[in-house]
């Protein structure tokens, strides 16, 4: 066992973990943050995307011990209290989810995308989300949702 301290959604946690423990299992099993999902074993699906020190990572291919001293943001930490993040709002407004299983990872990946490219074209949105699979929506409404969020965030930033 190794002792690590990780700040998750602004709150520090100190835990003993096996060196092989995956970040996604640490979040889900140790911290009970089950919003981050697991959809594959090969790092394709992106259901597990979280932010590690502000950058999106697949938590199924990140070891918990690698996150010692780091800051992690999960879907549970994205909203500002009761105020939804523009991406969460966009996914709701534009019917960007159906079963909801890929959604947390999709939103976290999209958040990183918009940070790097605040005004992406539809093609750039599709390209930016290539590491996240959705089986329900056909992606059309996910693109609309991300575009909605981009427009909203740009409006807010311009104010």
């Amino acid at each position, binding site marked *: 066992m190794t002792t690590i301290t990780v700040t998750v959604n602004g709150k520090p946690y100190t835990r003993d973990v*096996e060196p*092989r*423990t995956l970040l996604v*299992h640490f979040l*889900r099993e140790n911290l*009970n*943050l*089950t*919003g*981050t*999902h*697991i*959809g*594959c*074993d*090969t790092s*394709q*699906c992106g*259901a597990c995307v979280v932010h590690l020190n502000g950058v999106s990572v697949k938590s199924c291919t990140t070891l918990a011990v690698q996150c010692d001293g780091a800051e992690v943001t*999960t*879907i*549970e930490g*994205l*909203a500002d209290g009761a105020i*939804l993040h523009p991406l*969460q709002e966009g*996914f*709701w*407004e534009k*019917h960007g*989810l*159906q*079963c*909801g*299983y*890929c*959604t*947390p990872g999709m*939103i976290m990946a999209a958040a990183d995308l918009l940070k790097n490219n605040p005004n992406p074209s*539809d093609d750039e*949105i*599709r*390209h930016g*989300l*290539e*590491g*996240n*699979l*959705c*089986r*329900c*929506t*056909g*992606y*059309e*409404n*996910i*693109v609309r949702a991300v575009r909605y969020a981009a427009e909203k965030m740009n409006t807010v930033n311009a104010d």
Partner: protein
Amino acid sequence: MTAETELKPRYIGQSMKRREDPQLITGKGNYIDDIKLAGMLHVALVRSPYAHATIKSIDASKALAHPGVVAVFTGDDMMDINPLPCAWAAGRVKNNVNTPRALAVGTVRHVGEAVAMVLADDRYIARDAADMVDVEYDPLPVVVDAKEATAPGAPQLHENAPNNIVMEWDAGDKAATDAAFASAEVTISEPIINQRLIPTPMETRGSITRYDEATGEFTVWMTSQAPHVMRLLLTAFVFGIPETKLRCISPNVGGGFGQKIFCYNDMAFTMWASRKLARPVKFVEDRAENYKASTHGRDHITDAEICGTKDGMISGLRVKTYANLGGYLSTIAPGIPTTLYGRIISGVYKIPSAYCHVTGVYTNTAMVDAYRGAGRPEASYLIERMIDRFATEIGMDPAEVRRKNFIQPEDFPYQNGLGMLPYDSGNYEPALNKALEMAGYADFRKAQAEARANGTYLGIGISSYVEVCGVAPSAWIGLAGEGWGAGLFESANVRVHLTGKVAVTTGSLPHGQGLETTFAQVVADELGVPYDDVQIQWGDTQGTPFGYGTYGSRSLTVGGTAIKKSVDKIKEKAKKLAAHMLEANEADIVFENGTAYVKGSPDKVKTIGEIALQASVAYSLPEGMEPFLDETSYYDPPNCTFPFGTHISIVEVDPDTGMVDLKRYIAVDDCGNQINPLVVEGQIHGGIVQGIAQALYERAVYNEDGQLLSGTLMDYAIPTAEMSPHIETDHTVTPSPVNPLGVKGAGEAGTIASAQCVMNAVIDALSPFGVKHMQMPASPERVWKAVHSK
């Protein structure tokens, strides 16, 4: 207040945002793997690396000695429970039924079949210990191809199924069809393969059982589209215990697409082990396990023949299909290539004679059962490819051939001669015309010719489809001889509480379809109450009436109608009570917009809330009236519904690389009345991309040893956002006369329409190279070979 305002739907027809979403976008969903119970054990499975083998020995001693391991069980330990049932043996023929046990006994018949289960305190330990179980196998010869499996001398999977044949089934008029072919001006035959697909819901499957020693009752949380059916099958067939001893709960389910309809071994072995060890037991598949051992879809090898006249009239369709059903029969496997396929092969066309013969086959592969569309995409692909082949052969515009052979509006209700219930309603040409107009079809051929002259290969593909939705009617599915023992009715209970709030419980099982929202829209309008006052509850066999669950695009048509029937009963009772409260004659009471008033005296009015209060406190009820507004309905529809439409795609194919660029995708669908157009469009989008995926990307591949080569998401190409097109949608509205909501269903339409739409476009693009047909998926390699083999 005044009540005499015109009844206007306030919610039906509105694109309301889904009420399901707030929990799901904030990470507060509750999926199977999110559930933790005190003292819960984790299961890891030992799975067969061989596609066909005898199990010689299993040595679990090392695993049992591993710290944290509580037990290891094998199939031999579980001989006190029965194999899983096959609930839908295809009709009118002998079915040689072989179903899986909770864990294999004696022989394994596909790669990934579960041989032993390891239970440990932690999932990592369970996985470690599973690798320590030593299983010795004697490999047996393997067959993975359905046609080859029926050949003399092929490896045999089951003693009771000679030549690996599950069943021989047919539909239609063979003699008339043979006669049509014998006298036809034009006859075309084509081998058509509908390749095996893996459904791939983003959440894999799993189950958790808690056994209560004190009461002898099981609670099973499961990733199921049909928990009531699971309760029935697991108690009556597998365990031989009363249904009342099992409670099944589906929490949030992360997509299903058919794969989560069925009864699986993990439900049985978690129940068995939880009872044995008196501890909760959890099993959740990883993706590789889902790919190897949960059900697959499609996998037909077909010889298709079509005939007709040189001026474009189709006179006959003859189909011989080998349907690969895998190593064992899954819950409803034989029903898919028969009832849901063979009875609809003539599609939207008035074909005078048609005949379909299906041979169901065992092979050393994962079980095949319903996958989105389930039989209907296979049928639609076949007829729409053959129509295009026919059009090419006689040199006629494929849109024109379709138009000439469409079933006409006055033909409904239409009998297709294949034993399907009559098509309810349809008007196919307006949908075709709308799609052609959106695509700019009139100008396309010119643009195509110009592009070809410049070395650019464009193609356009048309797909006109009809699907059978609302899979339920006892008049069809439950008919003696069709193989399913019962009609697949749906249920609803509606209660109006003392406070006027409305609780609806349903046997439907939403897992992405937005039913909570859609159902609430229906109830709010029908009862005339605020939308937010309606709660839809589902998923728990304790507290919802028995229903057959969600699949077959049936939940609004069948489940929604059950809800409406219960609301109607509530309104009838409310009218009686209002008459009593208003001291009026019941015949003079009008119920609308959530109020009951006396005809001609709109000031004499009681709201549904006031009536519910009176019914609940139960002072002064009319003589003989029971307290409370609480009504249950079980709805067995008289017929299926038959949505339809036309999709068009435009592709550009690069003959040098074989790459297909899907430039436009246009969908005009008619699902009858739309309750929530936002949700309908979402269903159409998702369905379309699953069909496009079949046309361009996906193929489950077994090698000759029965190893699944496409065994992970690295190898099995479900589309990303970049691989998926922008989708242009529109619709026509032809209400269904079958149900009072006039709805037809939308869950599978996109998938049923889209694969052939894209393939027809690819083949059209390749026509200068002499390509008339190619098998799916149109991968770069296949396209390149097609171009360069000519």
